[in-house]
């Protein structure tokens, strides 16, 4: 369906009241300029013309990157996007914004994108809300996807909130489940509320694109296919540096030394560990098992272990094969961070601790007896196996 010819400006002759515009304010407070040539957004026009979104097609992912390295969540979301696009019979798309980032567009194709919109310009070398939001909004308005997904990282949320306001569309926050209803072509973005006690499903019925920020580490990373074909569309972008109100003075990397999101085994401690010494013991246990160490919020707040280890609603969400919960009672805010682990083992003195309802195996007893015993046994097994096969199973802890 071809785009209708641009209508006369809509501020006259409609029942809608005009958006208030102040007399020139000294500090430049005004409504943002709509993209060149448009008085109203595409979605507003379509909404008033009977909600026909048939020219909005495609399920896209914003591929977040820094210094040419993509955030893992982008690939995770491409896995979701390809499933949804397939169900809807449309293309999977990706948006890559930055400078000298064409290789990420190519990578996106291997992860499932049929088309990648690449906005590559020197002024985009570093993430800034103003420039990136404009870049993404322009691509969206030019090419009209029906769904756009972003990681709900700090920068992802920062960006998506701005884009949704420029484009005037709906944005669901921090989805942990995604689906699409084929008959209505509606995105169903679901996320936990009230500390994870309930889930809500958010719909965006009468605006396009439907957008959602989505939690990293929740969705599986698809297997990349190196030979896969796709198109890269280079998008123009002509924002000048002078027009951007912020400047990045410096970026101080803080490398996550604790990669919980991709850990296959996690040994985690809570209130029952009693103090930093308890975590020294857990550190040994984690090492003996070849696992990464995690912690509950209680332990982090008490200063027994650093925040990078925190698992739970305000920490990281993890999906390991093995989650060993030591001295963790299992409050809901912790559970939402680890409940999808394959095997959950709980060690706690209190047989009524909620964690036991979630666990596969539960050991009731003193972690300071059981933990060291586990360390001894694990080391013993490793030693014996090394004796027999010196080259074999010496796996390092992650």
């Amino acid at each position: 369906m071809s785009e209708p010819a641009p209508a006369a400006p809509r501020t006259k002759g409609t029942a809608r009241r005009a958006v208030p515009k102040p007399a020139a304010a000294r500090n430049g407070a005004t409504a943002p300029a709509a993209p060149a040539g448009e008085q109203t957004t595409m979605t507003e026009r379509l909404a008033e013309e009977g909600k026909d979104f048939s020219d909005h097609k495609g399920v896209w992912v914003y591929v977040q990157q820094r210094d040419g390295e993509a955030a893992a969540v982008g690939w995770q979301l491409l896995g979701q996007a390809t499933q949804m696009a397939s169900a809807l019979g449309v293309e999977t798309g990706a948006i890559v914004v930055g400078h000298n980032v064409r290789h990420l567009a190519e990578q996106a194709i291997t992860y499932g994108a049929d088309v990648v919109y690449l906005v590559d310009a020197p002024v985009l070398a570093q993430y800034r809300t103003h420039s990136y939001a404009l870049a993404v909004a322009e691509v969206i308005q030019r090419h009209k996807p029906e769904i756009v997904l972003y990681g709900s990282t700090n920068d992802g949320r920062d960006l998506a909130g701005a884009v949704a306001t420029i484009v005037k569309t709906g944005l669901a926050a921090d989805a942990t489940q995604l689906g699409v209803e084929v008959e209505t072509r509606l995105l169903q973005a679901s996320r936990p509320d009230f500390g994870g006690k309930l889930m809500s499903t958010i719909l965006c019925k009468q605006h396009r694109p439907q957008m959602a920020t989505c939690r990293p580490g929740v969705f599986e990373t698809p297997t990349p296919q190196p030979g896969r074909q796709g198109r890269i569309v280079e998008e123009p972008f002509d924002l000048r540096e002078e027009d951007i109100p912020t400047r990045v003075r410096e970026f101080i990397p803080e490398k996550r030394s604790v990669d919980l999101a991709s850990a296959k085994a996690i040994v985690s401690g809570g209130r029952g560990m009693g103090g930093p010494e308890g975590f020294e013991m857990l550190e040994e246990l984690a090492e003996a098992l070849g696992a990464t160490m995690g912690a509950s919020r209680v332990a982090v707040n008490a200063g027994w272990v650093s925040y990078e280890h925190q698992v739970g609603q305000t920490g990281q969400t993890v999906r390991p094969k093995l989650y060993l919960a030591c001295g963790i009672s299992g409050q809901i805010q912790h559970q939402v961070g680890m409940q999808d682990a394959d095997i959950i083992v709980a060690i706690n003195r209190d047989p009524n601790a909620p964690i036991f309802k979630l666990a596969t195996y539960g050991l009731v007893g003193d972690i300071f007896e059981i933990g060291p015993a586990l360390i001894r046994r694990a080391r013993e097994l490793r030693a014996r196996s090394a004796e027999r096969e010196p080259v074999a199973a010496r796996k390092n802890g992650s």
Partner: protein
Amino acid sequence: MHAVVTIKQVPDTSEVRIDPKTNTMIRGGVPSIVNPDDTHAIEAAVRLKEQFGGKVTILSMGPPQAIIALKEAISLGADDAVLCSDRGFAAADTLATSYVLWAAILKLNEEEPVDLVLSGKQAIDGDTGQVPPGVATRLGWPQLTYVRKIREIDFASRRVVVERVADGGIEVLESRLPAVITVGREINEPRYASLPSMLRAARFQPRVWDKTYLDLDPQQIGLRGSPTIVSKVWAPPRRQRDPVVMVPNADRDPDAAAARLLDLLAEEGVLDWLPAAAQAAK
């Protein structure tokens, strides 16, 4: 200096109970609080006022009972407070909310130019963090989110430098003013209300602005102005797990318990090295 702090009155989510039969929130008896991140924003604004002189205005959109939250903000050192309240604002999503707050900030700006808008980074009920970017975008002002520290601020030369918690590190970002800044717990320790402030708060009457006063487009407020809706609320299905295999008194013979557990884990195959090692031990 004129700083506007946008706050939200929220239910204390740690206190929320779910009715297991209907899977709905039990509303009765849940205390309302000022959104925790917003208290840090209020503190940041008040400290700037103490340093530079000027005024802190609290702004919120909510039902009439949100006046209590505004008065609490006054007791924490703010000077003025405005509540945007109207039946027409009900069921607003983040787009419709940012529209109302934007219009109110423009009004406040007409009274006295606004140099800075501060806000908590997200509210504990919605958890979206989307309203401040919406407000900033509508105002055409830079947005600086997840700010953990204001390094430098100069109202005369209209510049601010912040430390922003970005992904993978800390971003030192310089911005012109006015700007919208969102903050979290790391930025400061909010003060306790002083007695003079509490007395002032008790007598204080916030102004209440409705959709007419703000001259708002009815298509852009409340349910009407909300592209997103919550279509259903449901209890997350617990992953189907077999009932837990419990080992009581595991610490009576910890070595036996440890051996048994590692055997079980070897069978489950959850630790790469374990099955081979367990086999070798036999």
